[in-house]
């Protein structure tokens, strides 16, 4: 009973001192007023996730809060302290309208015709870089070098929108754009050829050796295997085995190997094995 009485007395004293009444929810970057009760001079503190502001106010009057004081989204605390003590109230500042988007696109290179290989993730921010937690629609536009563009609107969840999409059969750059309102972030991903398909070699005799070259190297979708890709030639003859790793140049890998008598020549690129040819003796 004694405790209850003490609490009531304290509440009455606080009520007599004055209260601060901020709006329950405020938008970042927009000024507003906090109403107060009571009378007399007081020190007003505004504690935000980013900074703390202090100024002298008159109780019983509205306290204007400048737009620059509420740029950061999060929980704020408004405190008024006078000769009678302190009183406080919390309120939340929510992110403003979507204004910026941070866009992650992985990987930067992807093989053609790969399911769910392209991963696009967009983070939606307002102009003060607060994550916009309310659901907004992010428009993902996938624009391949050839073929029709793909438009995929995705609702964000807690500020993040993501999607997965398959790579197309043709190699080349693919532009992916994430759009929210006026904000637009483009990224480019390279679709690259897959493993060589139908890897074949042919041999031509020269004065001192055999010139071995591949047919133009393409993957199973008809894309040219990029120059610089290593093709391994192996030749086995009476003197032993000869191997050479040759980079593709202008779509073809070629090398000259000395041949002693009968020989077998084979070709491989990575884990792909090509045909084998046999050469008779007598160069």
């Amino acid at each position, binding site marked *: 009973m004694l405790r209850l009485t003490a609490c009531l007395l304290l509440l009455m004293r606080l009520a007599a001192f004055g209260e601060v009444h901020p709006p329950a929810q405020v938008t970042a970057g927009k000024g507003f007023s906090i109403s107060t009760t009571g009378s007399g001079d007081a020190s007003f503190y505004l504690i935000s996730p980013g900074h703390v502001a202090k100024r002298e106010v008159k109780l019983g009057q509205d306290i204007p809060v400048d737009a620059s004081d509420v740029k950061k989204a999060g929980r704020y605390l408004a405190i008024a302290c006078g000769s009678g003590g302190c009183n406080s109230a919390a309120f939340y500042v929510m992110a403003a309208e979507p204004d910026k988007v941070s866009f*992650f696109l992985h990987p930067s*290179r992807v093989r053609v015709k790969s399911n769910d290989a392209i991963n696009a993730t967009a983070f939606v921010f307002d102009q003060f870089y607060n994550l916009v937690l309310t659901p907004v629609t992010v428009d993902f536009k996938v624009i391949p070098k050839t073929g029709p563009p793909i438009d995929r609107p995705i609702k964000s969840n807690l500020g993040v929108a993501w999607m997965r999409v398959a790579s197309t059969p043709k190699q080349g750059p693919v532009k992916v754009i994430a759009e929210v309102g006026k904000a637009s972030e483009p990224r480019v991903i390279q679709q690259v050829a897959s493993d060589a398909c139908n890897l074949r070699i042919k041999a031509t005799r020269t004065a001192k050796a055999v010139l071995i070259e591949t047919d133009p190297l393409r993957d199973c979708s008809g894309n040219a295997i990029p120059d610089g890709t290593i093709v391994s030639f192996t030749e086995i003859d009476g003197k032993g*085995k*000869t191997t050479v790793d040759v*980079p593709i140049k202008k779509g073809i890998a070629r090398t000259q190997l000395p041949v002693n008598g009968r020989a077998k020549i084979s070709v491989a690129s990575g884990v792909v094995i090509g045909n084998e040819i046999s050469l008779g003796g007598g160069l």
Partner: protein
Amino acid sequence: MKAFLPLFIGLVTAGLVAMAWVESGGLALHEMRSAGTPQEAVEALVTDIQSRNWDRAYARLANSNDFEKQAFIRDLAGSSGSLRTYSSLESFKVWPVEAGADDATMRVRLNWSSAVGPLDDVRDLEVKKEGNVWKVVWPKPQFAKVPPQVIPVNYLRWDVIGRGPTDDWGVQNVDNPNVRITSMNAVERPDRVVIVGEVVNEDTVPAYVNVNATLLNSDSKPMDQEGSFDMISHTLLPRQVSPYRIDFPGFHLQQVKSVRMDVKAMLVPASADPVIAVTDQKMDKDPLGKNVLRGALVNQSGQTVNIAQVLADYYDANGRVIWVSDGYVDQALEPQVAVPFAVDVPDDVASKIHNYHVLVNHYSIHEGS
């Protein structure tokens, strides 16, 4: 007192004559004349080579008229920034192969110490008796000469521009290459566990690759972690396959429950040049009777490769990698010139080898890669 002055003058004169004799090579001549056996002749020659006393070593040769001293020096000291130019002869061993009254064949094993570890060079030397002195007939150094020509090189080079420090968070970067371990095999050796296998660059850009392995015990707790160090071709061009080998000294397979493999790849600038062919590969025995994989390297490009390392992986009848060995070549790879190599293969592995794959790591001073 009368006898002192002539005696003093006589001693000084004798001293000066002795100094002149030493200076004029009399001592060396004496040493040479003292090579009373083929063993002594070869040992004296190699001792001079070890101390890089080329004049004296050259003077010891029976066939010094057949070639220039510079060719002899180049044969032993190396040239063109080869590994031999960074090596010194640490020790040697000489023993007879054949001995006759006037000629003999001696085998010498030269142990060179180099920046990448010890290198062995075994040579058979013919020794001839000339009067009372044995002299070494040094094999005439043969240096292949490349005819003047223009070799067009237009292979690809990859350069990388990454995300800058001033770029915003979320700005796209270039991803690291995709590499994959295609095979792995744990091999028990007498004093160690060895992990061997192959790794392939599956991407369209070059990769700098490192393979690490962790041995786990029966409680799945790590016992040791090691990396492939130089037993791998670190720079892999697109679709290139490299063997790797990771040694765990002091461990036995029965202690190991499993092995955790970890391959890391970074995107690096690289060049597709030079192309090095590995010709005439065959399993053979060296002069000491050890199993070796022998062959020759031919630099098909136009610039000298200063240091080359041969990496070989060996497969059993099931196509499984059973061993990986390496060897550095102490000669530079001049363009279009075949340079022989031999890498050791353990005897117990040699009997199981069904096939093998050879790769060449290269270092060129002008490229720094």
